[in-house]
């Protein structure tokens, strides 16, 4: 067990190193930050001086090793754009992203499972057909189109909800939350729905397929033969067995939600890490881009590590296979 985890850890570190090296080398193609950092009246010498100071003309390998060295000392540097420490910025923005991801995970789970069961059990009803065909929109429409459409319907025409921003924020120590005020819920609902739609569709279709599969198995037929109620069969026996793969998928998709939140946060001006990343890309704010990519890579690696360990615990075949 310990050697397995140690091996996994070593692999994770390697993955992190590769991901950060690849993303770092991409920064060379994003453009020149100096142009955004000085006014149009700065002279050529001033521009060169800043490039020199920031070490932008050093070989990419030198820049990368300096970057890794700084990270190991927990120093992510200062944002070129807003001149504040990057780790502070991420810590400040993270609660907004995590709350958004949390709420949309709940939405996609709840509606995904409920609708999945419904369409799995009543697979020929009109309701199922409507749900399945509208759920296609969830996978096929790009997130920003869904977001803008929701804004125009619920904020501009009906005026029920705010169009953007994160209202009703309350500070709980260092964590700023918007989940304990009405205003906060009003502002999170549209971005959370937008972000959840893709996952919701995925879960819905997964649960439905699993339900259909399980319903054909012998133990369900046997349960029916024993005269158990439909309710007991559907929920106690069938549903439980469909949930195993669903849980696996969800674990992996939390990372995906964080990554997808880049688009949703931009559309709704949700002040999370995704919005910060997009603004950093536009400005070529290298310290923030680098830190964010390392952060997202870390997130995926940690989730994968946990899933791997869980598999190890759950599935004896991995233990034996070595």
């Amino acid at each position, binding site marked *: 067990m310990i050697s397995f985890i140690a091996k996994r850890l070593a692999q994770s570190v390697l993955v992190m190193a590769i991901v950060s090296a690849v993303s770092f080398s991409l920064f060379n193609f994003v453009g020149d930050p100096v142009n*955004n950092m000085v006014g149009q009246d700065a002279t050529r010498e001033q521009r060169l001086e800043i490039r020199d100071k920031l070490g932008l003309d050093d070989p990419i390998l030198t820049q990368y090793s300096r970057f890794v060295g700084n990270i190991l000392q927990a120093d992510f540097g200062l944002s070129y754009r807003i*001149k504040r*420490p990057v780790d502070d910025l991420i810590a400040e923005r993270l609660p907004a992203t995590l709350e958004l991801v949390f709420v949309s995970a709940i939405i996609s789970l709840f509606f995904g499972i409920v609708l999945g069961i419904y369409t799995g059990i009543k697979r020929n009803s009109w309701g199922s057909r409507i749900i399945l065909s509208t759920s296609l929109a969830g996978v096929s429409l790009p997130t920003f189109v869904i977001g803008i459409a929701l804004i125009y319907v619920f904020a501009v025409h009906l005026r029920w909800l705010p169009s953007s921003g994160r209202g009703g924020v309350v500070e709980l120590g260092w964590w700023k939350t918007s989940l304990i005020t009405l205003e906060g819920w009003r502002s999170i609902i549209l971005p959370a729905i937008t972000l959840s739609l893709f996952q919701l569709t995925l879960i819905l279709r997964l649960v439905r397929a699993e339900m259909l599969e399980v319903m054909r198995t012998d133990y369900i037929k046997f349960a029916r033969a024993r005269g158990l109620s439909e309710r007991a069969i559907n929920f106690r026996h069938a549903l439980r067995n469909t949930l195993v793969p669903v849980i696996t998928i969800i674990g992996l998709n939390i990372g995906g939600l964080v990554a997808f939140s880049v688009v949703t946060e931009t559309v709704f001006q949700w002040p999370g890490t995704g919005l910060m990343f997009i603004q950093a890309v536009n400005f070529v704010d290298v310290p923030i881009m680098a830190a964010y990519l390392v952060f997202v890579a870390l997130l995926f690696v940690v989730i994968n590590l946990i899933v791997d360990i869980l598999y190890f615990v759950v599935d004896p075949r991995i233990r034996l296979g070595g």
Partner: protein
Amino acid sequence: MHVKHLLTASVLTLSAASPAFAENVLRWTSQGDALTLDPHSQNEAPTIAMNGQMYETLVTRDADLVLHPELAESWEAGADGWTFNLRKGVKFHDGSDFTAEDVVFSFERAKHEASDYKEQIKSITSMEIVDDHTVKMMTDGVNPILPNQLTSLYIMDKGWAEANDVLVPQDYAAKEENFAVRNANGTGPFVLESRAPDEMTVLTRNADWWGEGMFPGNVDKIEYRPISNAATRVAALLSGEVDFVLDPPLQDLKRIEATDGLTVKTAAQIRSIFFGMDQGVDKLRTSDAEGNPFKDVRVREAMNLAIDREAIKRVVMEGLAFPTSMITSPGVLGNTPENDAPVGTDPERAKALLAEAGYPDGFSVRLDCPNDRYNNDEKICQAAVSMYARIGVTVNLDAIPKSQHFPKIQNRETDFYMLGWGVPTLDSHYVFSYLLDSEGSWNAAGYNNARVNEITTDIATEIDAAKRTSMIEEAWTLVQADMPYVPIHHQVLAWGLAASVDIPIAADDAFRPRFAVMK
């Protein structure tokens, strides 16, 4: 229990925030938040606009861009520099007095290496405090336009800067954030109440402001929140969540106008859009032609005649542009109606000129164009490609983000490029010294005319206004004949407003809250 307390607390805050008493709250938005509140750190429009609500300058401009006294009551030029007589009885937000010492301190801070304003005031060699309310600024030779160069140079309190250890602007290479990045102490009409960068900045009226009662503005509180997505920004205006959008996308203006309770204001902007042709190199980098066709003035004229500026205005800009043949806008000293009138479109004549110059079959060249900087920048370039095809010039378009585009111009790696130029000083010297002087840092066209170079140097120190204006005119006449650029148009700027708000729109796109009236 704990949560219940918080809920009650937040409900209380909510009800306190709603306008129970008649308070004029102006809520507005634009694409990008100020980068920092440090007034000398970034020379960037949104940052200058944000800081201008809290900080003030010696000399300012009103909505018609006429120079007005702000912290200086008057100024006069002498043989070796300028004397500024400062306004008396002015206090900073923290209560300390505004004196000549603060002016000298702020200018020295702005001259510091980490400042983004050092270039604007580099002509100042030394400063002298005559008395508490008089400052003399010695310049390197005579500088006739020094007051024009000071309109975004904000004055800080020396004592406050010392107490908070912000004697110099934030340095890029530093590890720590300095206090001035998120705190402000100016003399201006609004006081910073709270700031969450990229989320919300709240300012309240400064009751002790020296200008109280002298301006029409009646705003008590300003709530600014940036919204980076253009469609969302317009949605916030349509849904009544904001009263003012500084930068609605041009294609949404009709829709805003058609909505009850909303209006649109437009004005000619001090920003001209043009193409640069590199006539300085011997061989173009991206062309199949022998040598450099742009060296021949006939080719440059053909490139100008090929562009149908009216069509670009009508089709690409939806009418929101002023076609021109100058690279600087009306409002800038040196722009004349004769020079500003657009050259006609004449593809036949253009073809003939190309043939005369030795390119009867045209040539090919790459056009470098930004896609996220100017109004419809990429679409203008696309239109130009087809217009050049008509005269046989094959233009390959490379439209890329501004962060990649501008380095090409600065590093002289482009043959043919789009650039837009604004003139903060409203004086042609700014255009000559950057775009037309052979040493100009943005002169990627490689334009080099000995007389224009000479005039650029001379008008920097010529104090006789009439003589200076005629020199500027002479230089423009030479430039118009040489045609180093292909001017397209002057940009139009548009604001979206709730009908209940009246804010004067100005060619510099700056929001002047002291003139904002809420009905």
